[in-house]
């Protein structure tokens, strides 16, 4: 890196100061930044939290898992959101699982297939299986849709499905869950993967190895594609960050996440 971390922090701080000067926010604003997969759920939580504690302002920002973790580490965000496990040097940070998110393999609703094996999915994404006809569907070229490099959803998919294999460079790349869903919903030959909570009637989620992609199957461990949603802080959280995290982990907070389509967190992790 050419800029030292110190210079970088200073620059980011400066930008934040400028931004906060623009919006004229109050001092006790809690900045929560990171994964765009966690963002929509965090926004719902923040809104509910606002009803409960009108004196607190929680500001949810995107930027991606890596950026969120980096922001928590640099102190530019009180809480970083991540849709993948921490790795390497990030492991020194404090983190808590707020929920689990299933990963759904989605196709167009008119697709006659309802189930694929994990092996089929892997072969489709390596580019060795290119025709729906070979899988017993309506013959036609498979339009493989993936996420961009660095996306938490993509790295979860690579980890859980691809193993050591690579996603074919011919895959169409979209930069959000929403645009993957939009594209799959309009293309009868497409296949993609998105957060299970974001599956709606415009697309069909395939069963994997005969197990339906549903929240209860994620919870009982039979549906294998899932990843944790984490809140990450520099040190054990205090003050308003602690209060917000406590709210998210409370039965009320977990209930909201459940209603929004996520799977409540596993109890054994702190």
């Amino acid at each position, binding site marked *: *890196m*050419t*800029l030292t971390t110190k210079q970088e922090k200073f620059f980011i701080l400066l930008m934040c100061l400028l931004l906060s000067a623009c919006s004229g926010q109050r001092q006790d604003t809690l900045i929560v930044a990171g994964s*765009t997969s966690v963002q929509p759920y965090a926004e719902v939580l923040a809104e509910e939290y606002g009803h409960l504690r009108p004196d607190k302002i929680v500001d949810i920002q*995107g*930027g*991606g*898992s*890596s*950026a969120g973790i*980096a922001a928590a580490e640099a102190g530019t965000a009180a809480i970083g959101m991540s849709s993948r496990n921490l790795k390497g040097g990030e492991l020194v940070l404090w983190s808590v699982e707020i929920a689990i998110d299933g990963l759904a393999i989605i196709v167009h609703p008119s697709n006659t297939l309802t189930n694929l094996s994990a092996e089929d999915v892997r072969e489709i994404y390596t580019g060795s299986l290119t025709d729906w006809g070979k899988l017993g569907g309506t013959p036609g*070229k498979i*339009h493989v849709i993936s996420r*961009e*490099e*660095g*996306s938490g959803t993509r*790295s979860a998919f*690579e980890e859980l499905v691809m193993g050591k294999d*690579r996603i*074919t*460079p*011919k*895959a*169409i*790349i*979209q*930069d959000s869950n929403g*645009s993957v869903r939009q*594209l799959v919903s*309009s*293309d009868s*030959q*497409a296949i993609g993967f998105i957060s299970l909570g974001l599956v709606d009637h415009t697309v069909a989620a395939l069963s994997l190895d005969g197990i339906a992609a549903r929240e209860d199957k994620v919870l009982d461990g039979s549906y294998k594609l899932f990843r944790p949603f984490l809140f990450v802080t520099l040190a054990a959280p205090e003050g308003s960050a602690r209060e917000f995290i406590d709210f998210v982990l409370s039965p009320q907070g977990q209930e909201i996440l459940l209603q929004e389509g996520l799977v409540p967190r596993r109890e054994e992790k702190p």
Partner: protein
Amino acid sequence: MKKTLAEVVTEKTFLVLALSAISALVLITVFIFVQGGPFITTQGLGGFVFGMSWAPSQGEYGIFPMIVGTVCVALGAALIGVPIGICCSIFLAEFAPPLLKNIFRPAIQLLAGIPSVVYGFWGLLFVVPFIRHYLGGPGLSILAGSIILAIMILPTVVSISEVSLIALPRTYKEGALALGLTHWQTIYSVLLPAAKSGIVAAIVLGIGRAIGETMAVIMVLGNSVALPESILDPVRTLTTNIGIEMGYAAGEHREALFATGIILFLIIMTINALAQYITRRR
């Protein structure tokens, strides 16, 4: 004549403001090169520019497929947009009655005012499904990008070629008509060759505009990092590579995106210099 104090102050103020505009250019240039330069030196320019595989998580940074993508999409845009643009400029400069001129000219300039994300959205909702339905493939393709960009470069191509046609001395046209040429013959064999350098500059600037566009093409190109085999295949351009991965990139990956920016910068600079050279030569 001696300048008054007020005059000196005004002059210096303007100088400072002008300098701040230039310094923005200098700052951006320096920043891109400082951020991306070291990456190119360690990676090797050849390996970076001609590398076939882009997989940042594996530490592979080759942008050749994106350079090919950029060239394909820009040329496609030129193939579709330039004939339309030049015909439009000839119509405006030579044929259009004043009333039509007053409608056409602002209408075409208005195209330049439409935000590029709107072009992209329109392309995604109309052009992409059209291609998918009638021509096959995923729809997100070189062709879709070229069509959108062809529309986006029209204002550039039309206005610059029209100006170069209007700027020709009246005597050219009068002489040609006096020799008995018809109006169309005059245009085809006298006016167009005379305005050639302006028209070529218009085309070059249009291509430059097409190469630099990001938002609209992110939405309709599909952003694959493989070499395209047909115009119905998805591709990624240099600009969309930066646009799509910037949000998540860190460390070496981010430096690689800045390095992509350097290559893009050099291409655009070359094209603009070429356009300047062509117009000056006249």
